[in-house]
């Protein structure tokens, strides 16, 4: 983040619109803003914070008293009913893109001199696109978190009053938190934890599923297929057997036809069998006819409904609700022509006219009328069909009964022929007939078995269709499982990877901070020969080690403690390598002149951009001289006791 410009409007003691352009070039990266105490340095500092984060941000309080943000001068100058407005506009660069953040608060001046503020402030964050157009950012919180999170800001927007915080012995927790946040250890920690949680959830989900199902289903399908094949093979064999038996029967018949003693009987048999076949075919047809008639006979059952419906329709007709001869259109035509049905013209409002109108208004819409007329006709026709239908059905059933008898008789005749042949005194003949009988029995039993096997094949086929559906379902499940188990694997590996590298990284960062803090501290403190080392312990306590190897903290002067703190801050800024400005409010306030000078000399190299709020006493002589070549912008805050307002004046 590199600040470009800020525009403050009616913010605290800043009346009207005032602007500061920040120095941001490489060689001249320092902006100095002078002001005596109370002139408005703190307010200015606050304006940056308020603009970026509002009065509170994700439960982090940024501004204490919002009501006091509005310029009193602006309020007093407004008339009753007028809208008074406070706003801060900040433009900055980040990763090569320009952002503009604006926050404003407004209210209406009341009679009692106060302003009734609107509930919420207005906040917009925009980014300039490559083509120069400004586009609104929809996720300001996420974006600010990627640029300068609110809980990290105090290490960059640095309040000089807090300067010795980190060097206090009890500051270890703060130091740790600072490092965690600024150096992204916290992010690593959270990532690892959350990935672990996510992996655990995947694991739980996966346990509930079983991979067995698909395998079982496939086995079942295979078995069903094998069964079908076996059954079909059996059907084939049975057919072969049947054919062979039929052939044998044919041979026997031929024999019997040729033999003198039996040829009459055999011919008789031939004749009976032919007729039997015919009758059986006829039987099939009759049954089919019966079935068609029976199924179509539902209307006979519905006879009461048909009767009642006809009655209802006739009623409506009789009551004149349906003109049976006229149609609506016809009547309308008559009316428009003012001519009666019989042809005579009638007068408007006359009896004939009224009667015709009545026919239309009490009549029914054309569509319904058509329906009624047609339905009535059709239903009448049905009434007549009932009788015939019943008669046809009876006739068919009678024929069936006849055929049953005929067939029975024919079968009895066949048995008779067979018996005679079996009873023949000639051994050969009776043997042939008995064989024939056996073959016929086989044929019959095979036919039955073939029938039942066909049913079995149908069942198996249905079963396979069902299984296929389930297999598809199981396959989809499996795909989901595979995905889930891959997710589990990856999430866990990711969590473990972070776990593995975390300590290395944390130790590395801690060391870097330690080294950098030491380096900066050495540069800034003249008593360096007294100090051996600066250590950042595993418990994150900042220690200065004297030449005897002991902690020298008790001996540090107040100033040295402050410098240590400042060194730590700057070390973090350097080590994190984030492009961020250091905005420091009265950083030199409590330092000795020596420290002040040392800091002024080194400070510019320790930050990408520096904004210093100073009182005149702070920045004098040598300190001023060291800083001078780097100053790119300089302002003075001029406070007028008369108006209690501060004006920002550009000095260079």
């Amino acid at each position, binding site marked *: 983040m590199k600040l470009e410009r800020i525009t403050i409007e009616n913010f605290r003691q800043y009346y009207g619109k005032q602007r500061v352009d920040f120095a941001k070039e490489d060689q001249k990266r320092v902006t100095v803003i002078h002001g005596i105490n109370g002139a408005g340095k703190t307010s200015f500092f606050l304006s940056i914070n308020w603009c970026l984060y509002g009065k509170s941000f*994700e439960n982090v309080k940024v501004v204490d008293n919002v009501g006091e943000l509005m310029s009193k001068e602006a309020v007093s100058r407004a008339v009753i009913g007028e809208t008074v407005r406070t706003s801060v506009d900040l433009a900055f660069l980040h990763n090569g893109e320009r952002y503009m953040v604006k926050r404003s608060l407004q209210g209406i001046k009341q009679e009692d001199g106060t302003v009734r503020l609107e509930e919420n402030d207005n906040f917009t964050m925009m980014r300039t696109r490559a083509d120069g157009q400004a586009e609104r950012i929809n996720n300001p919180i996420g974006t600010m*978190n990627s640029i300068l999170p609110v809980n990290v800001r105090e290490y960059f927007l640095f309040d000089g009053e807090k300067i010795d915080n980190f060097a206090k012995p009890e500051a270890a927790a703060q130091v740790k938190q600072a490092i965690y946040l600024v150096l992204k250890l916290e992010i690593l920690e959270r990532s690892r934890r*959350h990935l672990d*949680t996510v992996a655990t959830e995947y694991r739980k989900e996966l346990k509930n599923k079983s991979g067995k199902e698909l395998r079982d289903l496939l086995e079942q399908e295979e078995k069903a297929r094998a069964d079908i094949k076996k059954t079909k093979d059996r059907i084939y064999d049975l057919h072969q057997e049947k054919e062979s038996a039929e052939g044998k029967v044919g041979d026997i018949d031929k024999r019997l036809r040729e033999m003198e003693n039996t040829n009459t009987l055999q011919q008789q048999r031939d004749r009976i069998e032919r007729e039997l076949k015919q009758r059986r075919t006829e039987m099939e047809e009759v049954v089919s006819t019966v079935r068609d008639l029976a199924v179509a006979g539902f209307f006979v059952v519905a006879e009461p409904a048909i009767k009642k419906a006809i009655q209802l329709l006739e009623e409506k007709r009789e009551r004149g609700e349906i003109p049976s001869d006229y149609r609506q259109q016809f009547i309308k035509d008559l009316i428009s022509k003012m001519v009666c049905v019989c042809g005579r013209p009638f007068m408007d409002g006359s009896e004939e006219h009224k009667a015709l109108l009545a026919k239309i208004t009490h009549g029914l819409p054309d569509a319904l009328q058509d329906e009624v007329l047609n339905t009535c006709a059709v239903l009448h026709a049905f009434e007549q069909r009932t009788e015939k239908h019943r008669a046809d059905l009876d006739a068919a059933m009678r024929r069936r009964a006849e055929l049953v008898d005929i067939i029975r008789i024919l079968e009895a005749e066949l048995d008779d022929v067979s018996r005679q042949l079996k009873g023949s005194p000639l051994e050969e003949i009776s043997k042939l007939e008995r064989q024939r009988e056996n073959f016929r029995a086989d044929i019959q039993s095979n036919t039955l078995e073939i029938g039942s096997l066909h049913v079995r094949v149908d069942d198996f086929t249905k079963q396979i269709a069902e299984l296929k559906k389930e297999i598809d379902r199981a396959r989809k499940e499996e795909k989901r499982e595979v995905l889930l188990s891959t997710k589990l694997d*990856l999430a866990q590996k*990711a969590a473990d*990877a972070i776990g593995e590298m975390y300590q290395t990284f944390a130790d590395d960062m801690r060391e870097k901070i330690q080294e950098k803090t030491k380096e900066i501290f050495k540069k800034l403190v003249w008593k360096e020969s007294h100090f051996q080392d600066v250590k950042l312990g595993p418990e994150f306590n900042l220690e200065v080690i004297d030449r005897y190897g002991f902690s020298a903290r008790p001996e540090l002067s107040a100033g040295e403690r402050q410098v240590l703190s400042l060194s730590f801050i700057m070390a973090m800024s350097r080590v994190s*390598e984030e492009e961020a400005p250091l905005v420091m409010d009265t950083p030199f306030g409590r330092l000795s002149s020596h420290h002040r000078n040392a800091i002024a000399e080194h400070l510019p190299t320790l930050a990408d951009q520096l904004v210093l709020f100073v009182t005149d006493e702070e920045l004098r002589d040598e300190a001023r001289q060291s800083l001078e070549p780097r100053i790119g912008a300089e302002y003075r805050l001029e406070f007028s006791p008369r108006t209690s307002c501060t004006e920002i004046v550009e000095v260079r």
Partner: protein
Amino acid sequence: MQKERLTKLFETFDPAVRSIVLGVLDIEQEHISMEKPRVKEHIDEIVSAVAKKELERINGQEPA
């Protein structure tokens, strides 16, 4: 930059794992100011996307 350091930190790991780690780090960064961030859904999205790609890659490598 810290981001580059982190990328480098995980460079020895499997690219799929690395891609998840870096993706999640970004999400966490966006939510860093929240005490109880709701990131699970985002994380699941990232993991799912990477997992799907991985499966495609693996299946593509199977001999026909």
